[in-house]
């Protein structure tokens, strides 16, 4: 075989070594401390058009299929929506009543209202899925006021949380990612646990459930709001398998998430909005605002 003079030059080896060194130092810097965040942000702006391009066919297919849906389906859908609307508005009225009542109670207890009352929808741009990582990119970022650690919902269930932001995109980690854990409690017994991702789609593993705990199949686990990251009392997962292992002090509990990660295309972002506390009289100001009361009240309401 002949050696082509251009490819076997020593410069190639030099270049190769330089880039390997550069990659290694990038990895160390990125892993040890987050000092390359600005580089990542700049690059993510660069690839944004590419992400949009990849999303385009799906988006168009979705639009087109919506456009061509027949009159019949529209009519039935319309009917269903109207029924839903009636139901929802009735529920809304009930909710409004409860809200004012709750606010009054809170004011009396001098507890700060703690609510998430700003919502926004975002589209999923791309998904990274494997047994070691379950993350996705959405089309909303810093510019829309998204911050790291913000909870993400889907159809009234908890979907995950934001772990990375760029100006126009941000990365969401799913509940089923093996590096993700959410504090939960059993709706039936009230016993709390930690739900960790398994890396398997839609499956969670419950940690810290002692072997003699009362857990059954189809038990529903709700978010407990401990850690103050996720909103409390949202459904998270349903138990599908409870296994007792003789040598394990904890139960092996597998639960299926209420979110079906394979079908979701849009997610709901929620903000914990700072609420202006109405001015209070002098007497009530003197009494300390006890956070214990707040918790107790929350439990009573739930």
């Amino acid at each position, binding site marked *: *075989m002949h*050696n*082509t003079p*251009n*490819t*076997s030059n020593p410069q*190639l080896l030099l*270049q*190769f070594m330089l*880039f*390997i060194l*550069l*990659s*290694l*130092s*990038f*990895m160390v*810097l*990125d*892993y040890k401390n987050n000092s*390359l965040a600005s*580089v*990542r942000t700049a*690059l*993510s702006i*660069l*690839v944004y058009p*590419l*992400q949009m*391009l*990849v999303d385009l066919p*799906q988006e168009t297919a979705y639009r087109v299929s919506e456009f061509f849906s027949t009159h019949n389906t529209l009519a039935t859908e319309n009917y269903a929506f109207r029924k839903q609307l009636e139901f929802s508005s009735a529920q809304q009225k009930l909710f409004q009543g409860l809200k004012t009542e709750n606010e009054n109670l809170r004011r009396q207890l001098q507890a700060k209202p703690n609510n998430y009352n700003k919502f926004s929808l975002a589209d999923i741009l*791309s*998904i*990274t*899925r*494997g*047994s*070691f*990582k379950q*993350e996705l*990119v959405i089309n909303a970022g810093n510019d829309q006021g998204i911050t790291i650690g913000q909870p993400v919902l889907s159809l009234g269930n908890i979907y995950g949380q934001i772990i*990375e932001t760029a100006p126009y995109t941000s*990365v969401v980690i799913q509940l089923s990612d093996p*590096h993700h854990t959410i504090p939960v409690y059993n709706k039936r017994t009230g016993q709390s646990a930690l739900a960790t991702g398994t*890396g398997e*789609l839609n499956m969670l593993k419950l940690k810290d459930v002692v072997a003699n705990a009362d857990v059954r199949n189809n038990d529903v686990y709700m978010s407990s709001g401990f850690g103050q990251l996720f909103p409390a009392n949202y459904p998270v997962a349903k138990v599908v398998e409870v296994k007792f292992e003789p040598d394990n002090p904890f139960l092996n509990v597998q639960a299926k998430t209420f979110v079906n990660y*394979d079908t979701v295309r849009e997610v709901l972002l929620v903000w914990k909005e700072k609420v202006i506390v109405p001015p209070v009289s002098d007497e009530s100001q003197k009494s300390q605002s006890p956070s214990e009361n707040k918790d107790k009240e929350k439990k009573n309401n739930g």
Partner: protein
Amino acid sequence: MDKVFLRFPGAILTSVLVAMILTMLPLSSGLLVWRPDWIALTFIHWAIIMPKRISLVLAWFTGLLMDVLSGAILGQYALGFTLVLYMALRLSERINPRIIWQQVFMIFIILGVYLLINLWILGVTGNTPYSWNYWLPLFSSIFVWPIVHHLLSVFKVTRKHL
């Protein structure tokens, strides 16, 4: 001897962009584990066809973009693709690119080393894959290689050198 030219300026860049889009395309989880490494195959193709035109800079930068796109640690794919291109450039001097089984053997070695190093990086950063599915792209890549190799020749023109 025949001379090979690019069909249009920026043909290499275009082919790499297409490979990136193929890599990002959403698939169902059943198909996802079988996704061939389109970008690595593209670089191997150019290393065989036009070793003088393809540069490590492009491989490194493409890798960096893939790191951002896939949410990997910055430098993981950059290192991987640099390694793939360098090995492809060096090994393609030592094989006859016209013989298909030699090509396949070369790709097996290159992608094997690449996936092994990738696995090591994943392990160090605490992302060890738990199943053997990790190695499936190695076989799917080899399976689609002849097709990719053929389709990518759209981007080049061969002229008889007189």
